[in-house]
Structures are given as structure tokens and as C-alpha cells.
């Protein structure tokens, strides 16, 4: 069972071999390191760039406009905030030129807290990304979706941002989350595609023959079926929500968890169907809570489903503070944790209309 990092690497390999990917690049993306999370090890088109995020985004745009298939990486999303103008520009290429050009680039970046990354390795990017018209935004919560969403991102004719939840990168797939064609045995897979420690100059990966799997952009996944309350979330918080749901099940509360997978365009039908069933909803994510993407979903819920709601819809998100502090207690207090999710869910469920 692949980890998410391995899933990304396999998808990029398929991208290079079968989907026309011409360039995979960013800071420390090429040899010898192959990415600060090892996500780009052994890829034949991976190369190291200068330390310049604006250059990375500009390079991706230029390559895309010239009909190449670039996959650029920003090492941590915390360092993408000096490129918002370029991201807006990329999102506007097709619209501004009235369809004359499109800009088929993928931009990957690790996001979120959970690894004691302190102020500048813990940022979320979903709210910011959702404010970039013309972009598609995806965020997997498990290795299989990581693989399938990346293949879809690569073939999409639009700029696609691929947000990888940092805290899940090394988590292994669970049963049912296999990538079609991956060797069943973890050790075997690792031996094939993980670079050895030490000198790697002679190492070459031995790629397994993985199959196509396109997870459609814009389609959510029901991560857990339930009847009493809906949690709409994505990325790392899918697992948090499922864990909280498992706890609540002991109290007879049956939680449905929707893993959005795509932040834009998002699967409104899936949200609507679930809220109509449960009549109670929590929007959950790690980003700071003022002008948060969950607030958009909540607004739409209120506008379209007001009379379906048996309790005020809720948002549970990150604290509105300048960063996430390093010490354990600080990180815990800054982004949703299982306990805090449980507390909010209990309130929602206890609410008497």
C-alpha cells in the first residue's frame, strides 16, 4: 500500500510516461533530493530551480502557454504568498484572452499543520486558492485520491492547484485505497521507487506498472455514511472527522463525512444531498476562520437549504491569528483537533430546533 508521497510520485511518473508531462520542477525537486518530502525522487523530468517562487510560477505559465505540460512545486504553501498576482494571472489567461489561450499547468504544494512546522511550515492555502477564479483546486485525503486527482490535474486544460496535506504525506493507504497496479507489498514498493539513503547518483527507480485512474475534479466522496449530521471537509481533517465520528457512534450519533476532494469546482450536489438527509452540518477545515472557504459553503447552504436545517450550520476552522505557534499546546489550540470537532458536533446534534 503506497503512502501519499509514493502515490504522488507514481502519478507524476505516469504523467511523464503517458500524459505528456514535460517538466517537474521547483526548489530541491530534482536530484539528488527529489523533494523535501521525497515526492519527486527518480522522475526523469524533475529538475531543481533557483530559490524563487515567482520564477517557479512564471516558468510553469510560460511552459504551459508554449504547449508543454509543466508540474511546478512550491516547497511549502507558506511561500506561495508572494505569487498571488501570478496565480491570478494564470487563472485569467483563458478569460482575458477570450479563449485564445489556455494555461494547462499544475502547481503542487504541501499545506497545513500537524508536523510542528511553526509559523512558516503550517499554513493552509484552501481559502486563498478558492479566491482564484479560473483555477481548479484539489486536495486529496488518501493515497488513492492523491494518485487519481493528480492524473486528472495533469490532463486538465486549466491551471490546477494540487494541495497536499503535509501531515498525511507519509501515511499509508488503508484497504480499498490501493493504486491499481501497485505491488501489494509495502517493502517491495519501497525498494522499487524510494531512493536509497546516501549516494544516489547511480540509483534508478524500477517503476511498477500502475494503471490509469482519473478521479474526476469536482466530485466529492462520502468518506463515512451517516444519518444525523454531516461534516463537509477535505484533506487532513477527513481523518479527524472520521475519528470523531467513530467516537460519536458509541453515543448512537451517526455522522456522515463528505470528503470534498475538489475545492473548486466543488460538489454542491453531494453537499446538498447530505444536508437534506441529516439536516445538520459542520464545515471543517484548518485555514484561518475569517473569510474562510467553509464560510462560502455555509453561505450557500443557508441560501439554498435554510428550511432544511434543524440547527444552525457551523464552521470549525483555524484561529484567526498570524501563524501557528511551535509549542504543542499552541499548535493544538490553533487548528481543529479531534476533541474540538467532537465538541462542536455534540453541540450541533444536541441542538433542539
Amino acid at each position: 500500500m503506497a503512502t501519499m508521497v509514493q502515490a504522488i510520485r507514481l502519478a507524476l511518473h505516469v504523467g511523464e510516461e503517458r500524459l505528456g508531462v514535460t517538466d517537474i520542477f521547483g526548489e530541491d525537486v530534482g536530484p539528488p533530493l527529489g523533494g523535501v518530502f521525497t515526492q519527486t525522487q527518480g522522475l526523469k523530468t524533475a529538475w531543481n530551480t533557483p530559490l524563487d517562487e515567482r520564477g517557479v510560477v512564471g516558468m510553469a505559465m510560460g511552459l504551459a502557454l508554449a504547449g508543454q505540460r509543466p508540474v511546478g512545486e512550491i516547497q511549502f504553501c507558506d511561500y506561495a504568498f508572494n505569487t498571488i498576482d501570478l496565480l491570478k494571472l494564470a487563472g485569467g489567461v483563458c478569460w482575458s484572452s477570450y479563449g485564445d489561450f489556455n494555461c494547462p499547468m499544475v502547481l503542487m504544494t504541501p499545506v497545513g499543520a500537524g508536523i510542528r512546522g511553526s509559523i512558516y511550515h503550517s499554513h493552509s492555502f484552501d481559502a486563498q486558492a478558492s479566491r482564484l477564479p479560473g483555477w481548479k483546486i484539489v486536495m486529496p485525503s488518501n493515497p488513492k485520491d492523491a494518485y487519481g486527482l493528480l492524473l486528472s490535474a495533469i490532463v486538465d486544460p486549466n491551471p490546477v492547484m494540487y494541495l497536499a496535506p503535509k501531515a498525511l504525506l507519509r501515511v499509508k493507504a488503508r484497504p480499498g485505497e490501493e493504486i491499481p497496479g501497485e505491488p501489494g507489498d509495502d517493502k517491495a514498493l519501497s525498494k522499487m521507487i524510494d531512493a536509497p539513503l546516501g549516494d544516489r547518483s547511480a540509483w534508478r527507480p524500477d517503476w511498477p506498472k500502475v494503471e490509469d485512474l482519473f478521479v474526476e475534479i469536482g466530485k466529492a466522496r462520502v468518506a463515512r455514511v451517516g444519518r444525523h449530521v454531516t461534516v463537509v471537509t477535505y484533506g487532513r481533517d477527513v481523518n479527524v472527522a472520521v475519528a470523531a465520528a467513530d467516537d460519536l457512534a458509541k453515543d448512537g450519533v451517526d455522522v456522515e463525512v463528505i470528503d470534498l476532494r475538489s475545492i473548486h469546482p466543488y460538489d454542491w450536489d453531494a453537499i446538498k444531498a447530505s444536508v437534506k438527509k441529516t439536516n445538520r452540518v459542520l464545515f471543517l477545515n484548518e485555514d484561518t476562520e475569517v473569510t474562510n472557504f467553509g464560510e462560502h459553503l455555509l453561505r450557500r447552504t443557508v441560501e439554498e437549504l435554510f428550511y432544511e436545517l434543524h440547527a444552525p450550520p457551523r464552521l470549525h476552522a483555524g484561529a484567526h491569528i498570524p501563524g501557528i505557534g511551535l509549542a504543542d499546546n499552541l499548535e493544538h489550540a490553533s487548528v481543529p483537533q479531534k476533541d474540538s470537532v467532537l465538541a462542536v458536533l455534540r453541540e450541533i446534534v444536541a441542538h433542539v430546533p
Partner: protein
Amino acid sequence: MTVSSTLTSPKENRQLAPELLLQVHELMVKARVLEERLITMYKQGDGFFWIGGPGEEAFNVPLGLLVHKGQGPEFDYLHLHYRSSATMLAMGADPVDSLRQMKNTATDPYSGGRNFVNHYSIRKWNVVPVSSPIEVQFSMAPGTALANKRFPGGKGITIVQGGDAGTAEGDFATCLVWSSRKGAELPVLMVVTNNQWGISTAYDGQHGETRVSDRGKAFGMMTQTIDGNDPESAYFSLKAAMDYVRTERRPFLLEVMVSRLYGHSSASGANYVREEDDCLAKTEQKLVERKLKTRQELDDFRAKYTQELLAASKRVREEPMPKGDDIYRHVFATKNVVGPQDGRS
């Protein structure tokens, strides 16, 4: 070739063949008359804003003529400034399309009535969309240049152009850094059209560099500063620089001293500035001196063309305007028009 940081070196004072000079001149006139028409349209309320390139024709026309024109990485890519109308005309663009963009009609082929005039997009000639934020084109140029470079046997290069004030943005440095990496040099011609102004702010006082082109030197780049007011020396210098980039597949930083003949834009009045050198007047003087044209012929040609564009602008007034519900069109592309259809190779 001569590479220097001084203005035109003597050996560039060569003459263009008469036919070529006449062709350059004709395009210069057309570009100037087009800009004057656009300004008049603005002043008469047939458009909300004007910005353009009168004063840069002696350089921009040769640029348009020397481009290796076509679609895809075997051809030149152009990342242009909003003063590049003469380059567009020299490449063969229809001036009426500029009138359409000025009037923001639905028929504007560059943006469907969405963008300001002189913000082109011509995929079939690798003219990537011009956008208003200053200098961002310098961050993108290395990307098209890399595509140029890896095209098998290709001679296509990337040309990126911007103003002097804009070189203060980090993106200008990004282009210097990314196109000169040792062993990974890119075929980029960086052009700085230096009119000594950024809106109301004079060059002096904002720059530590005596010549903008000097900034390429630390990167081991070829650099040159040339006079952009003489189409002949501009043509020869530009050709030499382009040939170098085309052949050596390495970057070149070219600074071109030009005039800003109608001020910054309509926001600053768009009136003719007598203090600036007028390249068209100088070129016409040359033609008369070399007896290639008489004053009368020159005046007649200009008057005739002025009439044509006036008539065209009246026709454009009748063309349909965009509808409100058009705003959601092309937010997403439904297919890949810049490369292989679904990315599969």
C-alpha cells in the same frame, strides 16, 4: 557582432536597402496613425482609456519584421508591453482590431471587449496575452524560452519587452537569473524600452544603474544599449542581437532608448510632447534627403491612411457590444488549444 554599453557604435550606421526602409517607414506611419486614431477615439468618448506606443515605432517595426512568426515552440514567442502596436502591425495585425479593442466591442479578437487597448493575444503568432501588471511577462518568458530551446533543431526564441521603470520589479531580476543559469542558458531576448519615465516619475532619481543593460553583465549576458529613434541602426542592432540569441541559444539584454510622444496614457492627457525626439519625423527627413520620397508623397500617404482609419472607426462604432451574461464565458477552457489535446503524448 558589436556588444557594448554605449549608444550605437559607428559600424551600425549602415543603411537599410531602400525597399526595406520604405517598408519600415510605411509601417511606422500606419502605427503612428493608428495610435493617433485611438487617442482621438478616447477623446471623443469612443473608449474609456488609451495607452500605446507612439514614439517607439523605429524600434518596434523592425522587431515585428524580424520575428520568426508562427505557432508553437519552433517559432518566436512574444511577451509584449502595452506600447507594442507597431510590432503588431509589422507582423501583419489588422489595425481595425485595435479600434475594436479601444471601443471594447464584442468583436475585439484580443479580449472580447474585456481588456484595455493594446493588450493583444494572438495565439497563431505566439503573442501571449499582454496584461496590465508591469513586468510579470519577465517571469513567464523563461518558460516559453525553455520550450523554444528544447524544440529539436529549433531556431525559435523568446522576446520579452518592458519599460525602464518596470525593471525595478523583482520579475526583471527573475528573468536575468532564470535565463542565465550556467549550462542551462535560455534563448531570451530581453528588451527594455527606456523612455526615461514611469508615468510621472523620471528615470533619474530612481536608478543606481547608469544603463539598465549593465544589469545583465554580472550574469555573463550579452548586453547593449541602442538608439531606438533611428530605424536603421535599430534594425541592425536588433538583428544582430536576435541572431545571437537564435544561434547561440543564450540570453541577451537589449536596452533601447525611445521617446514617449503622447505622454504616459490618456490619464495624463495624451497630448503630443514637442520636447521628445520624433522618430517618424526623423525617418521622413531621411527619405526626403535620400530622395526616396517627396514631402508631398509622405503627406499624402499619411492623410490617406488617416482617412481609412477614420472610416474604419466609424464602422467599428456600429459593431455589437458584449452582453452582460457573457462574463462567465471562458472562465475555464474546455480543451487544450496551446498543446496536444488531452496532454497524452
